[in-house]
């Protein structure tokens, strides 16, 4: 009899172990994020989950957006995926991304008010929220204090307008040792200034706005360093991007985002540098908001079949603890408003924390728009990029190039 009871008990126990099947939640993200994500999962997320749940980060090596669209179409997406504001609308339009409002309403840890408003707007399509922003970035001015001191030029500051700013850059320009600014013909750097000058995204009648006088003025201003010689492109300086020129002390000023912080930390940790907001035009300032969020597929194609569990993981990934963790390792600026009072951002102790604070505040300033070109799409910035390249090489004057860009975009829009 005893043996029978023992047998039954052991069988029941065995079955209960079976009953606790392992649930794997897959997050797919950019391969460069692998170390951070895995550290985050290991240290912050996994401890708060039941032991039979495993969270796995799967890096995507190829073009992320294409990969995601393929997976969504095939019905085999990961449980959680990155959503970049740049292509958020395109992905949402497949109809296979889950709206998160109901989870947000029910959540105890994560509330809409917790998130920074402009980030919520960035991922809202047709009134519904489709991704929770995990972090964000915007553009600020980085400047090398040593170089400014050496030339006796006052540092760029939040009070600078377009003209005082270029004046300072001109004065700090010191060939052959360093150039005033390293600037690429990059539409992502140019367009905020164009918007600040008053250029709308599209003309009221839906045509391209590039031939407007404000746009041309912005193009002339933006290309001045290259045309007048107190700036250089990254290629001219022999580096891959302006950030490298800044780290290698080939340029005194660059316009970049928070992503420049880790390379500086790696290449020149004791560099004396400062950050400030982009210069204004007529009191107006423009900026781009770059952000990536976590999204989920609709329930029908959710691989783990546990939407509540997947939402919990998203909550944990954007929890104050997780975001504090990310902030302390200087990775990117997290999305919770409350973090503004985090010591790193409230009283920055070194240039890096100061830079993060500048980026954080810059995002919230009026004039910041999400980095998205919906509904026109990439043809918008392709036209601008071509125009900028031609201006920078001297092939066309700013006015001519912008008019050509307007013509190109109008031709495309008609299709």
């Amino acid at each position, binding site marked *: 009899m005893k043996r029978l009871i023992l047998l039954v008990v052991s069988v029941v126990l065995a079955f209960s172990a079976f009953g606790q099947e392992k649930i794997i939640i897959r997050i797919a993200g950019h391969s460069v994020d692998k170390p951070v994500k895995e550290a985050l999962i290991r240290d912050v997320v996994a401890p708060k989950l039941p032991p039979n749940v495993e969270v796995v980060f799967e890096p995507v090596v190829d*073009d992320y957006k*294409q990969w995601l669209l393929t997976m969504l*179409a095939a019905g085999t997406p990961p449980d959680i995926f990155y959503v970049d504001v740049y292509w958020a609308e395109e992905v949402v339009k497949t109809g296979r991304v889950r709206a998160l409002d109901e989870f947000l309403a029910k959540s105890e840890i994560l509330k809409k008010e917790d998130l920074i408003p402009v980030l919520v707007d960035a991922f809202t399509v047709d009134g519904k929220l489709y991704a929770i922003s995990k972090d964000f970035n915007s553009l600020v001015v980085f400047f090398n204090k040593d170089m400014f001191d050496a030339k006796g030029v006052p540092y760029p500051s939040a009070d600078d307008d377009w003209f005082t700013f270029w004046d300072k850059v001109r004065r700090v320009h010191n060939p052959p040792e360093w150039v005033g600014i390293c600037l690429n013909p990059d539409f992502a750097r140019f367009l905020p200034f164009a918007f600040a000058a008053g250029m709308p995204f599209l003309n009221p009648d839906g045509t391209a706005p590039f031939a407007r006088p404000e746009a041309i003025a912005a193009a002339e201003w933006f290309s001045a360093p290259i045309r007048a010689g107190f700036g250089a492109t990254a290629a001219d300086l*022999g580096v891959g991007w302006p950030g490298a020129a800044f780290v290698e002390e080939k340029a005194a000023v660059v316009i970049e985002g928070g992503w420049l912080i880790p390379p500086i930390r790696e290449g020149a940790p004791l560099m004396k540098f400062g950050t400030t907001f982009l210069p204004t035009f007529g009191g107006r300032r423009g900026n781009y908001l770059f952000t990536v969020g976590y999204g989920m597929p609709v329930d029908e194609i959710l691989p783990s079949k546990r939407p509540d569990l997947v939402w919990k993981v998203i909550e944990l990934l954007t929890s104050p603890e997780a975001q504090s963790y990310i902030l302390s390792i200087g990775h990117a600026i997290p999305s919770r408003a409350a973090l503004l009072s985090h010591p790193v951002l409230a009283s920055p102790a070194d240039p890096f924390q100061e830079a993060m604070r500048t980026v954080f505040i810059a995002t919230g300033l009026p004039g910041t728009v999400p980095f998205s070109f919906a509904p026109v799409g990439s043809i918008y910035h392709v036209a601008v990029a071509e125009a900028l390249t031609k201006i920078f090489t001297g092939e066309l004057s700013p006015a001519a190039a912008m008019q050509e860009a307007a013509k190109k975009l109008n031709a495309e829009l008609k299709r």
Partner: protein
Amino acid sequence: MSWLRGPRRNELIWAFLFLLPLLWTLGVAFAYAFFRALWWSFCDYDLFASPKFVGLANYAKLFADLHFLKALFHSLSFAVIVTFTQTFLALLLAIALNQKIRGLTFFRAAFYTPSILSSVIVGLIFIWFTYRRGVVNFLLTVARNYYPYFLSFLGLVIVMQSTLVLWGRKRGFPVRAFDPVYLWISLFVGGVGAFFLGHFRLIQPKSMSPVDIIWLETAEKFLGIPRPLWAIMALNIGTTVPTMMLFFLAGLQDVPRELYEVAELDGASWWAKLWYVTIPALRPVMFLVITLGLIGTLQMFDQAAITSGVAPLDSVITLAYYVYWNMFGAGGLPRVGMAAAAAIFLAVLTLVVVLIQRRVGIGEKAW
């Protein structure tokens, strides 16, 4: 079935057993795969839903696809230019260097280096070399900056060589224009002279802005062919010519001496010897080399895939890469029908090219 009994049957069974792996490979990995690809080329298939028969629609779509047409143009021009350039360069070099060479093992080891390394390794080093501020542009910059040295060197050599040749001829020696002994002397004098001219500042290296040719990250074309493709052609030719030259060299040294001696008795010049003895002797070898070269270059994939991250896709796409791109790269689901159609097209094209080469090519006489 009497023929199946006895030792005959035994042999058949053993043959079957021995051939089993090969039969599996040929059957499954080749024949089955080939016919499935052929079937899919007539279907609309995305690897998830079942294939839908669409007849020749895929092939029609191929010729309407700009990417395919570009890939076709690239593959054809790549094949023709690379194959013929490398074959004739290797041939010329082999003829020029045709003599007993000692230490051939050492040279062979050096020349085979790119062949034994992975195409990824060669490709990565190639990308690194052809960066805008890379080694290739650096060497070009140095060459450009030092052109006064080069010109004076050349001038001195010409002057010295002409002097020596005329002097030798006056003394009655049968000196040829490029007499090797005198040439060495002239080169030495030229080199030393140029060096001293520079030393005493009579000539100086110019310092001009660096050569800034973008080899890979551009879509610009030269003679209708994108520059990145030209760069890859140069890479292929450069890594193949040395080993091919050795191959021809071995072939040349197999040519019986008597043929040359007979020609010389008939008073043939070096050109006549080349045309009537050397080249005909090498015909079959050349034919083989050209045929294999065409097949290999038509199917070029690796270099396109490796540089596709750096150069624009439309500048390096080849037929083989087009097939891969339709399966895994184009975004959205795999376009199996298009990929299969393009692959079949590539196979047929290869066959056609080989047949044409047999018909028209340099080698008909040998067959």
